[in-house]
């Protein structure tokens, strides 16, 4: 491997795995960490400082629910003092009076608020938390009143895909600058719940038309980012912009990872901040170097003209579906097992329970052991 590597631009900090919601597509690992495994304030501040030295310009503060960290104001202030752009990714439920204003005062640049549905009943059912929709509306109002720029994040799946036009109206009515229509990616809890979350083909096509029309209609009014569903794709996404290329994430216990689901690749070992510096992990960690650049690629990726467009797609999806983390992402039409995606869609739809009768594995500690979903 001789690709020159670049300094990282972005970092996702999963401050905690604790969360009041139990969304069945959570991107956290199935084995959730308890509060006693979380890094303390000073360690996060040291980590952020090293990240800024390394070239990180943006930090996304996420979880779990990051506002459950009582030191969040302090962490934001630490990043802000280093000129790092801070984005708080929150479920917006149960944030105490005065805190959103305190985040803004500490220097928070932007707030991203998730809605599980555009309708209250959907939000409350998917997050398994009664009254959460109303609390989220209140969080949005408080964020706007504090002068914070706002993104609404809508994770899309079978049970809310028909609400996409309502999500657009909701985001507009809340004064959001940005809306993410993000189709659920089947890793973590979403993989465990895949059969219940898979949307119908016709609904996916309708959604694409609705979003494209809204993007055109709302130019200059609201940005709409569309994360398309992998299983229905022709080409894969450049997951994380390429493995260890310009972004990374840190788990609540300080484990530094190339992506959310990297721990599902059994051959890799990951290092924790504190055992080594961030710079050492970014440059030298065998796990980061395993799929960096293009040297690791097999055919058809190796000779593909898109190899530096999508960087082979998602390594974790290759692991989950092809059983080989170095395989071409099966979402790619050039993958020899691309047809597995269609088979998995059909299998999921054949098993889909009638509306309201589905039995999600809700995200909570101890809800499941590692399910065998390899296809």
């Amino acid at each position, binding site marked *: 491997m001789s690709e020159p590597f670049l300094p990282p631009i972005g970092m996702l900090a999963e401050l905690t795995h604790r969360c009041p919601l139990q969304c069945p597509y959570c991107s956290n690992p199935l084995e959730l960490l308890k509060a006693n495994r979380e890094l303390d304030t000073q360690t996060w501040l040291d980590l952020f400082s090293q990240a800024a*030295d*390394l070239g990180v*310009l943006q930090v996304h503060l996420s979880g779990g629910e990051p506002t459950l960290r009582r030191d969040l104001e302090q962490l934001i202030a630490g990043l802000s003092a280093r000129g790092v752009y801070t984005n708080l990714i929150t479920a917006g439920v149960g944030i105490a009076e005065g805190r959103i204003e305190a985040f803004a005062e500490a220097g928070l*640049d932007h707030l991203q608020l998730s809605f599980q549905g555009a309708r209250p009943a959907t939000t409350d059912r998917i997050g398994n938390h009664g009254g959460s929709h109303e609390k989220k509306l209140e969080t949005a109002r408080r964020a706007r009143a504090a002068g914070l720029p706002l993104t609404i994040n809508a994770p899309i799946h079978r049970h809310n895909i028909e609400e996409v036009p309502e999500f657009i109206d909701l985001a507009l009515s809340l*004064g959001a*600058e*940005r809306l993410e229509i993000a189709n659920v990616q089947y890793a973590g809890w979403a993989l465990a719940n895949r059969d219940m979350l898979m949307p119908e083909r016709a609904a996916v096509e309708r959604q694409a038309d609705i979003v494209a029309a809204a993007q055109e209609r709302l*130019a*200059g009014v609201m940005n709409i980012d569309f994360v398309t569903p992998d299983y229905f794709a022709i080409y894969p996404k450049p997951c994380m912009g390429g493995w260890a290329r310009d972004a990374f994430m840190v788990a609540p216990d300080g484990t530094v990872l190339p992506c959310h689901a990297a721990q599902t690749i059994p051959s890799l070992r990951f290092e924790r901040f504190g055992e080594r510096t961030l710079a050492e992990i970014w440059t030298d960690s065998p796990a980061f170097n395993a799929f960096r650049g293009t040297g690791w690629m097999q055919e058809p990726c190796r000779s593909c003209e898109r190899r530096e467009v999508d960087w082979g797609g998602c390594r974790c999806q290759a692991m989950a579906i092809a059983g080989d983390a170095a395989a071409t992402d099966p979402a790619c039409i050039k993958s020899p097992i691309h047809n597995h995606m269609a088979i998995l869609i059909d299998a999921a739809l054949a098993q889909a329970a009638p509306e309201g009768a589905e039995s999600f594995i809700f995200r909570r500690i101890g809800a499941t052991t590692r399910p065998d979903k390899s296809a």
Partner: protein
Amino acid sequence: MMTLRERALVSMQSVPSLPKHVRIQYDPVRHAFAVLSPEKVFWPNEISLDILRRCDGRSTVGHIIADLASDYDTDQEAVAADVIAFLREWSDKLLVKL
């Protein structure tokens, strides 16, 4: 009830500024100016930077064009089309406020 934002159109009288969620910052690691926005980082070229730096919430588009033409020692018409096209694109992406 919140009034909905409307798409802004560029005119010579528009007074562009950077919205709160966008900022220009020098990056000492890469020795370049970055534009930071919610999910994206942009690396504008020199001319784009010269336009963005003049989006100060006080100068009109007409004034920015005249200023750039003078700095680049060229006539205003040559600059105007580029500046207007740039501001339209950035305004449509909500990266510049008009």
